[in-house]
């Protein structure tokens, strides 16, 4: 992991901790704040991918992936912004859906890394599976019990856990292929 990646990962971890604190402290308003933050982040990421496509990746073999990713992520972000005035339980379900989705992505990345015999796949797979389990567990628990406070606590603990894993990955030794 390069210095810049480490900084980015630390910021991501701090964002997770902040999200958890906001949710627990502000309850329903906390959900809305986290949703707005997620929505803005997704839209910015989508825009960045689109800019990358139109300025550079359109010349690149397989570069169209940037276009598709940009459109889809931007759409997700815009959709998230439209549900900020919905009932808390819908917002919670959306956030859990996004959380589960990121877990699936982590698992797919880990499987790809395993195929390439990269050493990092175990931690990524663990993170992905636990994210998925957290999200599904919290959704089922929240829907069955119907207690927003418990759902909030489960979701926040998931965020803290995810932040801790990010911090661990920052301090892990990383091996790269050296190019002479």
């Amino acid at each position, binding site marked *: *992991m*390069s*210095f*810049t*990646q480490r900084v980015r990962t630390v910021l991501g971890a701090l964002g997770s901790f902040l999200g958890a604190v906001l949710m627990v402290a502000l309850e329903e308003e906390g959900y809305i704040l986290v949703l707005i933050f997620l929505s803005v982040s997704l839209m910015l990421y989508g825009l960045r991918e689109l800019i*990358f496509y139109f*300025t*550079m*990746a359109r*010349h*690149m*073999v*397989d*570069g169209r*992936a940037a276009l598709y990713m940009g459109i889809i992520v931007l759409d997700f972000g815009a959709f998230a912004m439209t549900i900020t005035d919905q009932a808390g339980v819908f917002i919670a379900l959306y956030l859990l859906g996004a959380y589960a989705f990121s877990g699936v992505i982590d698992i797919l990345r880990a499987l*790809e*890394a395993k195929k*390439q*015999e*990269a*050493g990092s796949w175990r931690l990524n797979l663990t993170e992905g599976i636990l994210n998925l389990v957290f999200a599904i567990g919290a959704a089922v628990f929240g829907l069955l019990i119907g207690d927003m406070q418990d759902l909030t606590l489960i979701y926040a603990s998931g965020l803290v856990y995810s932040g801790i894993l990010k911090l661990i990955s920052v301090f892990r030794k*990383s*091996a*790269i*292929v*050296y*190019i*002479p």
Partner: protein
Amino acid sequence: MQKDFHYYATYCAARLAGYGHEEGMEICYSAQLTDWCSRTFLGRLRAPKAAATTQLQLELADARTDLLGLQDITRIWASFHFLPYDLYAKVERSTRLYRNKYRLICKPNGILVKDTLDLAKKMSEAGAAHGRGTQAVGLAMHVLADTWAHSGFAGTPSLVINNTNTWFYEILSGPDGETERPVRFRHSPSAPDDPKKGIYTNSIYQWDENSIMNLGHGRAGHLPDYSFIRYRYLPAWGEYDEILKDNPKEYWRAFCQMVYAMLFLRGKIPEFELGHYAEETVRPWAEEIHRILEKRQTDACGDWKTLGEKLAGQALEDFDLEKYTGEYLGAKEDGKDATFLGSFFLAAMAQKSMVTERIFRSGNLLAGFSVDFTQKGFRGIGDFRRLLKLFEKEGQG
């Protein structure tokens, strides 16, 4: 390329170009040192950090990829390992952002190869005054040889230029003619490449334009460094046109061009011309050289060493990074530039300065800013002041 070509094959080329044994050893030492002269090495010697010609694995792992970090990486890798082919290349309907990266793609016989050789001649003549002319020659041989091996990749982190995908096939020659098999890449720094099974290590896929994983030929692993291999693949920048890389042929060209370049540096040829090769000079050894180049092995040091010893009529010593460090550390401050390593550092700074200036002059800021000392006075990094003094001394002479 690796030690087999940069050290032993460079020695062979130097001998064929007419250099003596001692000079040949100094030239190949300097060529190989270009792969070892990192900031860590320079720091240990308390030598100018601006003379770094490479970055080690640990240095790369911690390298910054912000604007200044990228410029630092580009200065090192574009100057010594991925010499840009055409700094004014045109790409239709492209942004400056893309064009700047595209223009750093390395290929043989670009105008910067001639500039490198002309500079090496100037530096070796300046160094010859105190018996230190071979370091610039060796360094230039490293740069020239790498333009062949690293063709098609750029010395700057870039997904859109340096990425490769699964469309990657090795071409094998056998008794039944040519066959092909898909190259299987893995990301395992500890596992050696296995040419028998066609399994090679490469850098991991990172969807990030400026990731270190997308520096140079990392995504194609060490395949460009093996002289025996022939493969076809889709370069990220090639608009879906395939490239066929025939390393035995290209390494042969690289070897013949090194001999030609060193004939020029010895003053046997008045001007270095691009696209010229000393094939006639090398022809008596052609069969043996082709045999080495085509042998399926990931390290050809043994074979090149045997050929070198045949040419030298004596044993060749192996590369020892510490060989000249004692001399450098023991020299007085004002005498360090006249030592073997001191002369190498000056040659390295001159090359880096020249390439950075050419990139900057083309309107491309990927390698940073360049200031002309002679026109605007000294405004650069302190390390380069000693280079300015050398040029001033030469001007007075």
